[in-house]
């Protein structure tokens, strides 16, 4: 597909590909695969990408439920990253509170180290029950050369609990993806393995790369527990600092989000020899496979079959019923990274086919997985921008768009049914049970009477003063 909006942006062609016959992909610039990814965004193209700070504070560090989440920088970074992503836990300190050193002009001129130290001490005094202080560095404090690592060490000695310093300045890297990496590395270096507990850990696992969006863990943790396994830590949904400290004891890591968290699984494998398996915890087949693979590692195959049979018997009738209603719908999925390929199979189970797939910060391995699973003729785009998304929605007219809240209202303005895949409309969507929620939300989105109303009764904008999309004239 040639994008009209990219006539003046030829470099975007290398980020756009079609899955050709026999699974071969064909890139927009005519060359063979592979799709360009994880490279700097074209300035001014209206990207949907965020920054490294967002990936570190918002995704990896933020869900840790008993750490003080302190941003070292100006107020905005802390304000915008506060409380909107529903990475829930069994307590809500991490959702309710955000801390910031609130750098002002004087601090920028004279340095913010003193203020950082004082802030850590004060924050700890206000919330003495917190188990650690997570300090996130930002653009401005990095540029003025504050030595946050050193301050963190000093502070640690004073308050007597871990002060974890994340060097996740927003200008680093090309997307939030680097922030995930930094979050993984820093937590691994400073927390994991800092306590050696006694006990038998031979039947224990960590769930890596789940952030407990809208309580996702309630849909799958009981299944692993039903196998007789103990979950030590989740990385990082509903996790405490103490859990992170002992997560190296687990016998097996199961890695769910393989973009944002494979890093820590790799580091644990290297340092502690902990093996890991990749799983997908969304969808009937994938969830069953995750349980089977996990069980195979521990020799619990029979138990797994029992658990799977019980759950499938309970859930499959709902899925079958929804498939009747959703059959044949064409979907455009645009997610951060892995959810795109996690969900291709899930949507097929509901009778739907992914026709367009896009990721914000996917790497080569993500795109390989997408191309392996997606149907021939499907369009795949890396780091799409607003005009491209608009063009897909208007020219390809998918039946359903699965994306995040920033894109929701664009889809709505164009009359395309939408489900929020980032933070879920209702949720949770994971596991067997969650898939019913997902299917129900998709059904609601597709069959809401409002679409009939807008498609049949909406009128053009009344004033001639303003140009209509597609026409060349802009009078005002």
């Amino acid at each position: 597909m040639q994008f009209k909006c990219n006539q003046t942006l030829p470099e975007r062609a290398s980020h756009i590909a079609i899955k050709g016959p026999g699974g071969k992909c064909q890139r927009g610039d005519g060359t063979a695969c592979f799709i360009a990814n994880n490279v700097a965004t074209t300035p001014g193209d209206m990207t949907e990408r965020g920054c490294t700070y967002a990936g570190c504070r918002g995704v990896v560090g933020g869900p840790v439920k008993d750490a003080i989440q302190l941003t070292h920088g100006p107020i905005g970074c802390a304000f915008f990253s506060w409380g909107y992503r529903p990475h829930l836990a069994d307590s809500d300190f991490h959702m309710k509170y955000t801390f910031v050193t609130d750098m002002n002009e004087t601090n920028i001129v004279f340095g913010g180290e003193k203020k950082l130290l004082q802030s850590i001490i004060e924050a700890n005094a206000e919330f003495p029950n917190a188990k650690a202080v997570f300090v996130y560095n930002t653009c401005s404090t990095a540029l003025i050369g504050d030595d946050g690592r050193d301050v963190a060490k000093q502070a640690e000695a004073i308050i007597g609990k871990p002060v974890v310093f994340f060097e996740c300045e927003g200008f680093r890297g090309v997307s939030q993806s680097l922030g995930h990496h930094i979050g993984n590395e820093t937590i691994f270096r400073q927390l994991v393995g800092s306590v050696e507990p006694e006990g038998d850990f031979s039947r224990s696992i960590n769930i890596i790369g789940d952030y407990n969006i809208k309580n996702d863990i309630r849909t799958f943790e009981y299944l692993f527990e039903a196998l007789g396994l103990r979950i030590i830590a989740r990385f990082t949904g509903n996790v405490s600092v103490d859990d992170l400290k002992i997560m190296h004891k687990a016998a097996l890591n199961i890695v769910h989000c393989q973009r944002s968290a494979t890093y820590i699984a790799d580091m644990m494998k290297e340092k502690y020899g902990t093996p890991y398996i990749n799983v997908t915890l969304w969808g009937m087949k994938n969830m069953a496979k995750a349980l089977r693979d996990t069980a195979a590692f521990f020799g619990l195959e029979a138990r797994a079959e029992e658990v799977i049979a019980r759950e499938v018997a309970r859930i499959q009738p709902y899925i079958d019923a929804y498939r009747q209603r959703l059959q044949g719908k064409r979907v455009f999925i645009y997610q951060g990274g892995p959810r795109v390929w996690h969900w291709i199979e899930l949507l097929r189970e509901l009778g739907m086919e992914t026709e367009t797939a896009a990721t914000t910060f996917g790497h080569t391995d993500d795109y390989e997985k997408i191309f392996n699973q997606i149907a021939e003729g499907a369009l795949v785009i890396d780091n799409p921008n607003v005009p491209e998304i608009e063009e897909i929605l208007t020219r390809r007219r998918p039946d359903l768009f699965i994306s995040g809240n920033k894109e929701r209202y664009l889809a709505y303005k164009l009359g395309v049914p939408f489900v929020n895949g980032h933070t879920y409309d209702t949720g949770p969507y994971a596991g067997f049970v969650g898939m019913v929620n997902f299917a129900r939300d998709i059904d609601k989105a597709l069959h809401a009477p409002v679409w009939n109303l807008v498609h049949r009764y909406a009128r053009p904008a009344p004033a001639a003063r303003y140009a209509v999309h597609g026409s060349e004239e802009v009078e005002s």
Partner: protein
Amino acid sequence: MTSCLTLQERAVAINPTRSCAPIGAMLANYGIHGAITINHGSQGCATYPRHQMSRHFREPVEVATTSLTEKTTVYGGKQNLLAALKNVWERFHPTMIMVCSTCLSETIGDDIPAIIDEFLDKHPDVKIPILSVKTPSYVGNHTTGFDNFLKEIALNLPDRRKKKGETNGKINIIPGWVNPGDIRELKHMLREMGLHGLWITDYSETLDGGYYNPRPHFPRGGTTVEELRSSSKSLATIALQRYIGGEAARIYERRYNVPAHVLTMPIGLKNTDAFVNTLIEITDHTIPESLEVERARLLDALVDAHMYTTGLRVALYGDPDLLEGLVGLIAEMGMTPAYILTAADNRPWGERMVELTEELGVESEIILKGDLHELHKRIKQRPVDLLIGHSKGRFIAEAENIPLVRVGFPVEDRFGHHRRSIVGYNGAIALVDEITNTIFERRATTIVSNTLIETGVEGPTSVPIALRNGATARG
């Protein structure tokens, strides 16, 4: 009655009430038809505010970013900004481009106006205005970005009058940081008075748009660049917030001889009267029958509500201008704004608020540089009956079981608040209704303390009240 002024001393801010400058400039720029913002900085500096605005307005919000990375941080962001200007121009053909800076681009010292000049030199076909607004996050707060944007508009866009006394017959109105619903209410008032406003700026439709098929290329509405160019020929400028637009109004006066009227945000009877009187003063129009009726209806609502509202203690938090206006209505309702907390470090405002509250006959603690954690601690020490502010105060409301009436920005956990109005006579009526209904709902479930009877009663604010389950509780 004596009010007091406190400056919060803590270094760390816990649950701030404010965000940072770029979002203010982005919001204001949405009030210009066909204008596009380029944020010169890290991607997050554009994406976070976009996301925040989307949650508040429930509209698509589009902002371009120059996507600065490590390399550009070392060598400067000039090439990225040049590329962004080119790409935005070629793909969108906007009517105006506003480039706002960030901590990053300000700290590395990119000379944005010079880069814009270089772009215009290279692209003689580009005739639209390209404005540079300084919005580093470490100076001021989100209102600073809005205010700086308005100052740049006032300095750069208007044409000089060709001859003395040349006029467009309009009145420049700078509403400040308000909701689309507020702008529509102000427009209604001017229409009723038979006056023409020139709105600087007007996002009443661009950020609360309709469903049209086909979707317009740019959102419908907004003040046009041509209108802004003629804003130097207006009869007067009325800024409805002192710290957002007050300075811009004075620029119009100094540069273009357009008289400036800087007023308190028109919330409540007296503040709205001041606005209407100013319009009358400027134009010699009389107050129309329809506005007299609205005004009388507000007075009637205040009378009807007074037995439910008088004597209640309220905590207010948010931006200085909003608070200054709100205090007027709160006092008219007989309530005591016990805590008035703002994040700004604005001593002159604080001192004026002390005087204002004393004039209004209420006793308040005005807290500067405050955050919501500080407010929470105060409320724990001495509770209030009602919280008024944006959504982020919900954590206090939940923890202390105190109702929260949502005003200001952002309101992200309720639907349609951006369509509501709290200004003018109608806005005040709506707010009186909402506050009173909140109290009713409260009364039906748990308690509303009347602090007038507090004296001599054991406990923080109120008498023990029987709960439905038979237990007793205190407010």
